[in-house]
């Protein structure tokens, strides 16, 4: 395979970047920007949901929390060399990493020595070093991380909600796993997972700041291994029913006020990025009209003192799962849930989205898109999220701006039906 290079432009927001299909199979996006700090991120298409997969047709399972454990441990180095964090630090670069349900990403930011920092990024990710001893030591650190999140009510509430929506999908699995599950993670497990997913074909590199496409390409040519066997891994998911797992659920946590999690399961899934993005754009715009601070629902609930401003909504869409999650801190979670149901039912019945609402929302979306390209860090992250998902960020913007009111009505009718709702409430513990 040869390396292919193309430059992508967006006239509307006057931005461009270079996309490289590297001969290794890696997708590389470079956004030169005049900034003090350069940001780079290497995303790997594997995350917490990947606890079951096939390699060359052979089914494999790993303990919950493996992707996250690997993310921690990949920074390790052999005994006679410095670990990746120290190597970055020597250059004045700061390194970081994170794991999501779908992706693992390794990042650095650097105000100098950007090219050398990129070399380290593309070096350490391809040189795993796991031993009994270093895995054991990391287990204690990750156990503390798990406990920290266990003490966070928002984390408990989120997973309760997702567990309510899904019967079997591993989106239910805590990204970090549990203290029990990580006990089964060994160097062998990490190597198995690593070999399955850490392949250039399954990776996206994005760089924004003071590196040119030529610089980045030269580092890629020098650092990305070229003698790897073909990528033969496939993600595996059990068939997830369209129904929600449970319609109502409640739990307690050490917290101050009850929080309502109103989940809506979206079953309109597609393996095609454009189809997925077109749907996502319509849902995002619709949700903004339905739930933003200027929406009739929000203002009504706020004016009546039913919510206190800690009210949010998000839409998550991946190839195998999608949901809307509305959260509200409220003394009357059941009443607010009822109000949301009634409001949605009315909106479905009336189809009362005005031109003014639609135009206002398009302005909000346009401004959000423009400002996302203000900072190199945001640009890097936008680009990574689109590319790792098989898409492209400028196309995503065009898709967003092409949404019509009819698209919104279609989504409104299909998505907001009561059988898709799962209400989960987290109450304060009585101490």
């Amino acid at each position, binding site marked *: 395979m040869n390396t292919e290079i193309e430059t992508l432009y967006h006239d509307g927001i006057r931005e461009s970047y270079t996309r490289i299909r590297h001969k290794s199979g890696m997708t590389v996006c470079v956004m030169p920007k005049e900034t003090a700090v350069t940001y780079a991120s290497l995303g790997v298409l594997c995350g917490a949901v990947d606890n079951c997969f096939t390699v060359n047709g052979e089914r494999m399972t790993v303990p919950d929390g493996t992707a996250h454990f690997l993310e921690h441990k990949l920074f390790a180095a052999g005994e006679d060399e410095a670990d990746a964090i120290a190597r970055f630090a020597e250059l004045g670069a700061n390194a970081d990493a994170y794991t999501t349900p779908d992706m693992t990403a390794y990042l650095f930011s650097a105000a100098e020595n950007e090219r050398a920092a990129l070399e380290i990024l593309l070096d350490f990710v391809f040189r795993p070093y796991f031993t009994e001893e270093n895995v054991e030591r990391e287990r204690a*650190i990750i156990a503390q991380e798990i406990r920290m999140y266990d003490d966070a009510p928002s984390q408990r509430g989120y997973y309760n909600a997702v567990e309510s929506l899904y019967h079997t999908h591993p989106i239910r699995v805590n990204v970090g796993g549990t203290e029990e599950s990580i006990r089964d993670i060994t160097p062998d497990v990490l190597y198995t997972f690593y070999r399955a997913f850490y392949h250039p074909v399954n990776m996206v590199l994005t760089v924004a700041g003071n590196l040119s496409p030529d610089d980045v390409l030269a580092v890629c040519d020098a650092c990305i291994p070229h003698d790897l066997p073909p990528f033969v891994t496939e993600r595996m998911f059990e068939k997830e029913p369209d129904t929600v797992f449970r319609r109502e659920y409640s739990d307690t946590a050490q917290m101050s006020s009850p929080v309502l999690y109103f989940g809506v399961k979206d079953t309109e899934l597609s393996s095609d990025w454009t189809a997925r993005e077109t749907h996502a754009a319509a849902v995002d715009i619709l949700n903004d009209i339905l739930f933003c601070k200027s929406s009739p629902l929000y203002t009504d609930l706020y004016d009546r003192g039913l919510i206190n401003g800690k009210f949010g909504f998000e839409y998550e869409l991946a190839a195998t799962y999608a949901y809307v999650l509305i959260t509200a801190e409220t003394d009357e979670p059941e009443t607010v849930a009822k109000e949301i149901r009634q409001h949605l039912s009315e909106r479905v019945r009336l189809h009362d989205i005005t031109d003014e609402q639609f135009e206002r929302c398009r302005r909000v979306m346009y401004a959000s898109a423009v400002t996302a390209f203000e900072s190199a860090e945001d640009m890097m992250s936008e680009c990574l999220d689109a590319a790792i998902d098989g898409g492209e960020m400028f196309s995503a913007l065009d898709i967003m701006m092409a949404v019509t009111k009819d698209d919104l009505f279609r989504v409104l009718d299909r998505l907001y039906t009561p059988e898709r709702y799962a209400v989960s409430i987290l109450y304060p513990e009585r101490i």
Partner: protein
Amino acid sequence: MTFKAIVCGKAAVLYTIPKDNLKTDYLSVVFTLPPIRGKTAEYALIPALLACGSEKYPTHGDFSRQLDTLYNAGIGCRTGKSGERYQIVFQLRCLETQCVPGGEDLFSETVAVFADMLLHPALENGVFRTTYVEREKKNLCDAIRSDINNKAGYALKRLDCEMFREETYGIPVRGTLEEASAITPAALYDTYRDMLAHAPVTCHYVGKLSAESVAEKLRPLFAELDALRCAPYYAPETEVVRQAQHPVRVIREEQPTRQSRLCIGYRTGAVLADGDYYKFALFNELLGGSASSKLFLDVREARGLCYDISSFPEGQKGILYISCGISADAYDEAKAAIDAQIAAIRDGDISDAEFSAAKKSLCAGYREIEDGASSLAAWYANRRQAGIDTSPAETAAQVMTCTKEDVAACAARLTEDTVFFMCGTQSGDADGEEDTEADEYGD
């Protein structure tokens, strides 16, 4: 770097920081208020009340709709403190003209909405509307109570309460539940009018517009404000306590959590106004400011005692905090390890590699500030309060001149004041307790 200060009203100053690669205009407007115990709940409520509605935009929904129409312009408001100066901070942000499809002057329009919000709040009988006040009082009480939801933040707030119980710095920014509950519309309105009359105002603009142009666009706002202003203007100063005044206080509190939080407060003997605070900033970076710091490498990486550990300074009052999440039974080992790392720096046990890494990491952090409008405005606001105006780049250059002796001297000046240990009772580590919550959670 010196930027021209433009007097834009009575006791009101505007600084503009030119930055031509942004797609937005950013303006912060800070009112400084006196630190009075019993008043801070009112301070916290004022921005909330202003956001409820105005003469032109009677409800918060009307504000939101208008700001959405202005291409998602934002007017954020909050209370905070810088040293012992209590502040109400407004942050305006909007697309700069060249990024607006119709080329509209969104900055002027956003300032106009802000002026209406600030100067013409929705009233009844000459004071804030009772329904709005009661609703926002409840929301403020909810917010105060919600501190417990974030365990790390809660433990640090408790440390502040204990460490500064006899000092102005210990006055909680949002007041107490009792203070919030007792607020009346009339008293709140009086405090608001006092703020308009007597609070010094500092504005920082970051973006493409010239200083003169920004001043011109703010002129209507300040012309109207000036009519309400009169001397004396508040001039709160921060009392600096350079050394702990008592043996170390150790406070232990049990909470039903899985993880315990260890927080330590130190008097640093160093403040921004000293002029060489960059030495202390470097000491902090070396101690616990990054993933290559001594605390991170020893307490987390070598000992595996925690996931998160960091140190962070407060430069107006002269404080250093250390915060980490540990097992309940790891208190002694973690505390001893932290003490040992501070002692190591004091004794000059600093390798060339870690010293160089700390310098580079700190300087990279300063460079990062230059890329963001709000971070740049906050940088200068904080420094100007201390009477200095070095830029991030200039400060980075100063950092590079520091010696190991400089940071060892910073460590030697540090005195431990208060330890707050939030001991988690659900960890399963202490008293052979079973960890039932974890089992449930993994289901």
